């Protein structure tokens, strides 16, 4: 039976779960790396079974990196309970999809953007840059650590039943309510940041006209995000070129 210190070591290793991410096994080798403190305890004195367990833990796996903590502990629990290897393999396969989808929706699509936007908003409203960065890092990582730790503990407790836990999981429900705030903040940050860049630079340009053009551009990019991203890159390069052409022409 893994000790509390083994579980703590495995949890700590989940921070490096993507350390050897590759196109062959994706995060699979990282899962095995994080599980090793558990596997060594479970199969202490039995190198053959340890080798077999490590080999099946290294198989292809994918999932959101924070929620991989759930896979690490749940798979460790199954190993500890002596679950049939075929059943473990089926479980791994079944877990891949939800761990990716839930994490991507909750963390990458909602929690990270809202925290970043709060950090930028703090900066454009006058907070110091170090404070603004700190606001983002503390806020974001509070959520990060809570989700990672919950995932690890829940995986260990639930074992095979983690699938049920992931259906409508609390942080997905909670973060799912953030999307209106994300959109409001994105619009506000774009305007405030633009105003800061324009302040005192070129008086001849009408702010109202730029606001109108910017609104149309933002809405077009919102409707067609891929093309909007390309357009944003072209406009950035165009801005640098125009500035220097203007300089050359006097």
């Amino acid at each position, binding site marked *: 039976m893994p000790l509390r210190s083994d579980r703590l070591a495995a949890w700590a290793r989940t*921070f*490096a779960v993507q350390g050897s*991410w*590759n*196109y062959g096994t*994706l995060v699979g*080798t*990282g899962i*095995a790396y994080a599980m*090793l403190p558990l596997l*060594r305890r479970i199969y202490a004195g039995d190198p053959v079974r340890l080798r077999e367990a*490590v*080999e099946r833990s*290294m198989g292809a796996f*994918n999932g959101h*990196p924070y929620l991989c903590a759930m896979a690490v502990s749940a798979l460790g629990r199954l190993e500890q309970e002596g679950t049939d290897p075929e059943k473990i393999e089926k479980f791994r396969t079944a877990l891949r999809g939800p761990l990716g989808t839930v994490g991507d929706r909750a963390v990458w*699509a909602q929690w*990270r*953007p809202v925290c*970043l936007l709060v950090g*930028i908003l703090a900066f454009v409203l006058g907070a110091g*840059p*170090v404070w603004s960065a700190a606001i*983002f890092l503390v806020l*974001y990582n509070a959520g*990060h650590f809570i989700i990672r730790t919950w995932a690890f503990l829940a995986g260990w407790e639930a074992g095979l039943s983690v699938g049920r836990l992931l259906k409508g999981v609390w942080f997905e429900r909670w973060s799912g309510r*953030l*999307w*209106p705030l*994300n*959109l*409001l903040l*994105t*619009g506000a*940050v774009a*305007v*405030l940041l*633009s105003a*800061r*860049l*324009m302040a005192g630079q*070129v008086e001849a*340009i009408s702010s109202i006209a730029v606001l109108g*053009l910017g609104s149309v*551009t*933002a809405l077009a*990019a*919102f409707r067609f*995000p891929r093309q*909007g*991203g390309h357009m*944003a*890159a072209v*406009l*950035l390069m*165009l*801005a640098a070129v*125009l*500035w220097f052409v*203007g300089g050359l022409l006097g």
Partner: protein
Amino acid sequence: MSWTDLYLGPGTWILAVAAGSAVGMDAVSWPQVMISRPLVSATIGGLLLGNPAAGMLVGAVLELYAMRHPPLGASRYPDTGPAGLVAGAAFAAVGGQALGALLLALAIGWALGWIGAVTVHVRRRVNERIMSPASELAADPGLLEQRHRIAIGLDALRGGVLVASFLIPAVLATSLGVGTGPSAVGGYALVALVLGIAASAGSAARVSAFGIRGWPLLLAGGGAAALLLLGGLP
């Protein structure tokens, strides 16, 4: 600004390379606390050159550009840690004031993000070799741990090499934007930058939105900010 006016001490350069390793590694390998986001890495770059506000101004714009690329599965996305650090440091190094320098720093940061993405792709391929054959690693868990840590170390090295290679060229290139004043044509450059920010914000917003139904909120956020500005917000 003359190139001879610039001074980037060896101590600062070494610190920047070390910070580049940290932010390069953070994005994927360890510990994913998001110091790799341009908002943070560019501020670190600015801080190292004595002007964190200049760094964050660059980082905030690059952040809007980066937000539309969530790291889903094996997708490719800009490697914003070293890129943000270099761009923020470059703008801070040349005074953190000139709009021409800001435009160059932003263009460099954006381009370097995609150069970094190529190195991430190469690293994924290298990891495939490092982490095989599976049977050998399974037979010796200590070797598995060692290889995994080597892979993390290589990622740190990758970030450090990017900063080491591009920091001085970026500072020199950004310095070309100092002293080039606004002109009639140059004014349009600012408009292009603002529209670029609008386009990046619009496309980034779709990452969080469920479909296209949220567009009035995007507009309302922008409108509320404009009203705040009209009301005298600094």
